[in-house]
């Protein structure tokens, strides 16, 4: 309890209370997460259940769009007759799951590699950092496109459809580890030369213990800051891949594949199939980025000092 009270009284919380943009984006983000993960409970239909889909309901406009609208479908339906609201909720859930898991994988890979590189140094460091250079010189999307195309070709669309989430997490996770590795390595190098690390060495503590107990906890705030950007990036990457047809299959749409699936109908007047999920995606990314900007300002040691 004491810790909670301390946290609530901290500067961090104070600055949060002072900042409208931070509060707004935080609220928005929390709402997204809540609604997305509660999708099976709150959405009016289950878009994965073929029995609830009727092709006769296809391409119905949102409620406020004239006579054709159906009271059951608040945001209209897509080309297959799925309720847009439900599909978007489920889609956001998939996008967020992929975003979080991919970033989790990035953090795991990047932090381990960065920590080892920075603390051990020498050839191991050179090897990983050159690898990171090479990987960063190829764009994430390119790597992801190649990887998912190869996967699709070798296992077929059927299996791919079932494993899509896992594949996307792996592809996006592996493609972006250098961001973390570099950041962590830089802070490890800065921390390693500080005297508290020397003090731990003088005590005789083993290397791994110094690394995990002393150095790692002091490199966490930059990790937190880039994580927001990385989650946003991962969601965008997933959306882009799905839009290109290499991501989530149409029967299990993420935000990206929804946007993509509605794209062919945009000129036939059914704009909502593309535009509504696009808006959701934009607002989601915006809220994450705003939150990240604020975090960066607050945790910036130069501003935080004194």
């Amino acid at each position: 309890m004491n810790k909670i009270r301390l946290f609530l009284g901290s500067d961090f919380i104070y600055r949060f209370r002072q900042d409208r943009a931070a509060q707004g984006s935080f609220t928005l983000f929390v709402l997204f997460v809540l609604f997305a993960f509660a999708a099976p409970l709150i959405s009016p239909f289950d878009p994965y259940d073929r029995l609830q889909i009727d092709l006769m309901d296809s391409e119905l406009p949102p409620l406020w769009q004239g006579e054709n609208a159906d009271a059951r479908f608040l945001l209209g339906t897509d080309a297959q007759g799925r309720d847009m609201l439900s599909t978007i909720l489920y889609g956001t859930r998939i996008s967020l799951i992929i975003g979080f898991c991919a970033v989790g994988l990035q953090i795991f890979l990047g932090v381990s590699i960065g920590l080892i590189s920075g603390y051990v140094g020498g050839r191991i460091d050179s090897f990983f950092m050159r690898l990171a250079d090479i990987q960063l010189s190829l764009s994430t999307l390119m790597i992801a496109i190649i990887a998912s195309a190869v996967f699709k070709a070798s296992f077929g669309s059927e299996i791919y459809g079932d494993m899509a989430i896992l594949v996307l997490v792996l592809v996006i996770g592996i493609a972006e580890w250098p961001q973390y590795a570099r950041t962590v390595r830089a802070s490890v190098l800065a921390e390693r030369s500080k005297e508290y690390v020397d003090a731990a060495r003088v005590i005789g503590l083993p290397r791994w213990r110094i690394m995990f107990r002393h150095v790692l906890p002091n490199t966490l705030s930059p990790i937190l800051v880039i994580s927001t950007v990385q989650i946003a990036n991962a969601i965008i990457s997933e959306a882009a891949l799905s839009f290109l047809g290499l991501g989530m299959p149409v029967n299990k749409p993420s935000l990206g594949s929804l946007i993509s699936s509605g794209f062919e109908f945009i000129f036939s007047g059914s704009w909502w199939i593309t535009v509504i999920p696009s808006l959701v995606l934009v607002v989601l990314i915006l809220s994450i980025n705003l939150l990240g900007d604020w975090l960066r300002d607050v945790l910036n040691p130069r501003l935080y000092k004194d």
Partner: protein
Amino acid sequence: MSDTDGLLKIDKLHKRFRLSSDGWFGAKGQVVNAINDVSLEITKGESFCLVGESGCGKSTLARTVMGLETTSAGSIHYMGERIDNMSDAARLPYRQRMQMIFQNPYASLNPRMTISQTLEEPLRFHRPDLSDTQVRDKVVEVMESVGNNTSWLSRFPHEFSGGQRQRISIARALMVDPEFVVADEPISALDVSIQAQVLNVMMDARDHRDLTYLFITHDLSVVEHFGTRVAVMYLGVVCELAETKTLFASPRHPYTQLLLSAIPKMDGSEMTHDRMHGEVPSAMNLPTGCVFHGRCPHAKDVCKTDIPTLRQVAGRQVACHFAEDTG
């Protein structure tokens, strides 16, 4: 000095740093000679001071003694046992007997650990046999002995001032009951009114715990107060080595004389500005002969060619060709 009372023996120590990354694509770099052929012996119960300006190798020497740096040549013995080439495991018992106090109190405590975590760690690591109560009792005992309030224990380092942190650092070093403590400029980052407090804590610990100090500093006025013997270092070599009283009464090496004259006097006199003494050469390309000849008022031709070795003159050791004439 007989072998029996020698605690730490440094013999012909050299330390070179290569200024390059040792990776696969790193550029070849220059070599810095941080320590050149330094031999010292510290006896039990001494407060041995090592004085010199930045870049003279005094901190490197301290770090080498503590095993934070490797040696390039030469040896370090502790109680007759060679410690500089020991494996980490073999060195472990010596980690308990030798401890270190660092310069920067703002960097020497882990910001994410509470004071009690910081203090308990060395003891729990070296003495896993102790119970929680025993560890906690020890923490309280040490904290009180350095004048710290035990209510600090649950707090984090950022809540403390520089002097308080330095006293916590000292407490951490004392947790494992060391015999020998290396203090690397422990007061130079502190405010004036705090320096005296920290020096007093260190002197009390010496008296109560029978400590031997290797005290690194650039401030000669502290040496006169704290040290029993002094070695003056310049560009990686020892210029003069003497009892504190002897050195302050009659410095023989021209560099020691220059250092002594730089201590501000508090007798109401104004600062005298005599000649320029030149700049300290870079340790990357050391001058030939005596390292001090470029700034030395007594330098002759021989100083530019021959390296003077430490020799006994007037009750102390001096590395100067003209030590007889400089008194």
